[in-house]
């Protein structure tokens, strides 16, 4: 059933301090809404349980991408269009740029925000594995002040996060340490554009004297949360990539994911495809990024 707009409140205080004051006054009773690409879909379907919304759209404090010497700070309501077209993102964080370009069509990229995607906490979100491998940190803000948390700790269970009821994500901070790495990402879905992933993988690696010096692998749609594949990384790190290592890595990956059967795919298919994506990444890394 369609929702009746008379039943909902929406306010737009227009600056960050007014928004966090509102959240502090009545913690948990206001749902922040940025570009609406998730909230408005639930609203249209009559499934939005929140009745009071506070708009973050076009808050100047959350809409900037700041380039610092050691990190890139992406304001939480920067859109996918802003992110995929940013020169430093394209050059140093190509996995994020490509994930942004896969997220919905152009109209949704013009409205969907990275912070919204993180808080919505879908295990299938395309950009979240990229944030895991870049070892992002989140800057959280409330009237109590700011705190930084490693993104890897942020999702505590299916659609659960460690965000307090009076807190917002202010920025996503990406360390500028991986520009020379080989990067690999692939989304497997029913079609490339505007389809939700069956499985997606983002990975980074670096070889030194023929051995894997550093490796980071993360996947979406294979567990209740976007997942860093630490055991698989442990198998690969410090070793030379050969067919035995690839088989070993595929087995480790299958062991640490928890895929499910749902409307988009099956656990068995997801597991098989994930192993193949890990293999494709390692083959690319072995050649120093020369092959596709």
């Amino acid at each position, binding site marked *: 059933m369609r*929702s009746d707009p008379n039943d909902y409140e929406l306010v737009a205080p227009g600056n960050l301090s007014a928004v966090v004051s509102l959240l502090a006054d009545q913690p948990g009773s206001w749902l922040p809404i940025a570009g609406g690409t998730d909230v408005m879909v639930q609203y249209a379907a009559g499934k939005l349980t929140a009745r009071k919304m506070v708009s973050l759209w076009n808050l100047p404090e959350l809409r900037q991408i700041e380039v610092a010497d050691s990190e890139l700070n992406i304001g939480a309501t920067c859109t996918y269009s802003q992110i995929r077209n940013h020169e430093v993102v394209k050059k140093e964080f190509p996995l994020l740029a490509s994930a942004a370009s896969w997220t919905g069509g152009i109209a949704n990229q013009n409205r969907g925000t990275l912070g919204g995607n993180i808080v919505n906490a879908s295990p299938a979100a395309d950009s979240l594995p990229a944030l895991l491998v870049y070892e992002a940190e989140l800057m959280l803000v409330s009237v109590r002040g700011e705190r930084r948390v490693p993104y890897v700790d942020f999702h505590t269970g299916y659609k659960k996060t460690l965000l307090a009821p009076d807190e917002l994500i202010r920025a996503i901070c990406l360390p500028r340490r991986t520009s020379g790495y080989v990067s690999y990402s692939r989304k497997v879905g029913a079609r490339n554009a505007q389809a939700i992933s069956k499985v997606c993988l983002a990975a980074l690696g670096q070889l030194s004297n023929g051995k894997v010096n550093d490796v980071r692998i993360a996947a979406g749609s294979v567990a209740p949360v976007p997942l860093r594949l630490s055991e698989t990384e442990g198998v690969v790190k410090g070793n030379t990539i050969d067919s035995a290592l690839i088989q070993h890595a595929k087995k480790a990956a299958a062991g640490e994911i928890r895929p499910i059967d749902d409307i988009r795919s099956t656990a068995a298919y997801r597991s098989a495809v994930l192993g193949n994506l890990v293999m494709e990444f390692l083959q690319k890394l072995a050649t120093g990024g020369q092959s596709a």
Partner: protein
Amino acid sequence: MTAPRARSDISFTVNGEARTVSAQPMERLLDVLRNHLGLTGAKEGCGEGECGSCSVLMDGALVNSCLVPVLQAQGANLITIEGVAQKDQLRPLQQAFLDCGGAQCGICTPGFIMATCHLLSKKPQPTLEEIREGLSGNLCRCTGYAQILEAVQEAAARESAR
């Protein structure tokens, strides 16, 4: 049943004209355009941001108007399909859709035209791949897309020639 909330006055520019509507802040921009302002060119297809039939330009950016609460359009510059033609004169890109058979039943057409306006504003001479990407959020169930892609290529040529 709760008592109706007080409406808010929300102002924006539509197709070059300043307008103020009295609306609930959570009303969808699509409904405000269609029901308050009589601009019925933008269509509701899926109502969840998948089909692009409700596409409009908001401050130059292509958006699905079914996913925009009208309060977020406060102060915005909006262009709908009704604002694309110059008086009675179709834009070359609209004529290209007609000439190439890029429209059949017509439900998706306003959205495709708006997506094409947006694409050509960013990339006046798009490659076929860029056209496919630029229109990937718009669904058509009649044409099979070939005529639409051809229309956009033709539109790019005509728009740049004018």
